[in-house]
């Protein structure tokens, strides 16, 4: 341990180093009390990571947002070696697939690349997709009604919507859903080896190759169309491997996040009927619905967070984090900071809302956030309009939980009745 780290620990009086991730109780999405304790006692805490040593975990909104946005807190690269991390595989982050390109290029290059496909992710693009998502959600509820209760709100509803949107936006066939799910699962796995991740990435690239070739001959008005047109303009606009990286990153991030957020939020809300009743009164007015979904996003944890590595010493509050340290950034740490969101554990649709941290900050902030917001708005709107009495079909303790093997967590299935 360096002298600076020693000083840090003495100054903040951190008596013991907790293990990260801080455990959630069984069958619970209630953010652990450890965040509250650390926020008060040691807001940039030293923690033991599952592999590779110790990292820093900030727990206040201010420092989490600052670290997300600070270019000195970069993405982890293969060249960083055996860093403290969550995953068994040697390298954390997105390395091992072409998607890593987006995180390892310079900031200026990143912004140029991102703008190539940004037209598909604007507020107005999201709004244009809304009526399609309304149709999809209604068709799914029709099918649930035909089969009768109980239904699995994850498999029968939550995952189908972002999967349909992803396939249409990107321009890939819906019938190969299984491959996309398998690929995304491997990308966010904490147990797969680097080699397993590379094998899966290669499989997905080989699958995409003829689809991309077809798009090059006959580009459509979708993300693959945007990518192949950019790539045709030359490597200074977009290289072939950047093009593949984008396509794979969109598959990796396109449905897992929204389906987990919706399912986890439903697990939380359906245990609070008075909150669901309030939400039902916010469905008709678009601004009210949008605000309500921000609050739902705020209270819904979906994953353990993302790492950064300090490229230079970084001052976070009173703590100087030396260069070369891993910082682990959790969005729920920020979203539950009571100095920004008073009574943070309460769901209140009338908050004077501060920006939520759910989509990150800085240049790597979520590209799909407007699409995600729109999908979540429609998912809740259709569900509560069509099935106003929807509720859990089993006790929360009986809800099947995902095995602890990916960066996201929550119910594996969500049995509901109505």
């Amino acid at each position, binding site marked *: 341990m360096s002298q600076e780290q020693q000083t840090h620990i003495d100054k903040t009086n951190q008596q013991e180093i907790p293990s990260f991730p801080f455990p959630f109780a069984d069958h619970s999405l209630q953010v652990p009390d450890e965040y509250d304790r650390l926020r008060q006692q040691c807001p940039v805490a030293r923690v033991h990571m599952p592999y590779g040593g110790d990292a820093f975990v900030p727990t206040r909104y201010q420092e989490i947002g600052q670290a*997300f*946005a600070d270019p000195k807190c970069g993405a982890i690269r293969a060249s960083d070696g055996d860093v403290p991390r969550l995953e068994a595989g040697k390298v954390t982050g997105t390395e091992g697939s072409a998607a890593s390109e987006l995180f390892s290029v310079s900031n*200026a290059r990143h*912004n140029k690349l*991102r*703008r*190539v496909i*940004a*037209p598909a*992710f*604007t*507020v*107005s693009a*999201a709004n244009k997709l809304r009526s399609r998502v309304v149709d999809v959600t209604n068709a799914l509820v029709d099918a649930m009604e035909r089969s009768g209760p109980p239904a699995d709100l994850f498999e029968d509803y939550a995952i189908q919507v972002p999967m349909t949107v992803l396939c249409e936006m990107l321009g890939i066939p819906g019938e190969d859903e299984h491959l996309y799910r398998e690929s995304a699962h491997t990308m966010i796995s904490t147990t797969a080896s680097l080699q397993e991740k590379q094998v899966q990435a290669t499989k997905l690239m080989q699958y995409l190759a003829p689809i991309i070739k077809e798009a090059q001959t006959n580009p459509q008005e979708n993300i693959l169309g945007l990518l192949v047109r950019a790539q045709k303009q030359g490597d200074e606009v977009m290289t072939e491997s950047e093009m593949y990286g984008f396509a794979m990153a969109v598959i990796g991030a396109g449905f897992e996040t929204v389906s987990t957020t919706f399912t986890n939020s439903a697990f939380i809300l359906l245990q609070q009927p008075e909150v669901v009743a309030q939400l039902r009164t916010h469905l008709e007015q678009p601004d009210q619905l*949008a605000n309500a979904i921000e609050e739902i996003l705020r209270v819904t944890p979906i994953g353990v967070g993302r790492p950064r590595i300090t490229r230079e010493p970084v001052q976070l509050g009173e703590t100087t984090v030396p260069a070369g340290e891993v910082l682990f950034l959790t969005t729920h740490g920020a979203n539950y900071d009571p100095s920004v969101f008073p009574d943070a554990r309460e769901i209140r649709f009338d908050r004077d809302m*501060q*920006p939520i941290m759910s*989509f*990150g*900050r*800085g*240049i790597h*902030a*979520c*590209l799909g*956030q*407007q699409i995600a*917001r729109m999908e979540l708005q429609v998912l809740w709107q259709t569900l509560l309009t069509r099935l106003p009495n929807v509720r859990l079909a089993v006790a929360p303790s009986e809800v099947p939980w995902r095995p602890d093997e990916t960066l996201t967590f929550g119910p594996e299935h969500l049995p509901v009745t109505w």
Partner: protein
Amino acid sequence: MKVTALRNRCIASGTCVLAAKAVFSQRESDGVVELLQEHPSLEQLQKVRQAVAACPSQVFVVEEEDNLSELTLSTNDEEM
């Protein structure tokens, strides 16, 4: 209050449009912020402040924050 959008920092997140849709839009070609008004009414002040605070890539620079007699917006496309 003067607000300048440093557009090379923009990552096209659309956050400003959500906060103040009467003032901000996104360019069709690349999603980058564009202004719908350069002198919005002071009624927009609170929404513009929200857009400034919520921008994930800190595109906006605010000057004369205490001067509330007028609200002036501009864009700057220089490389940084």
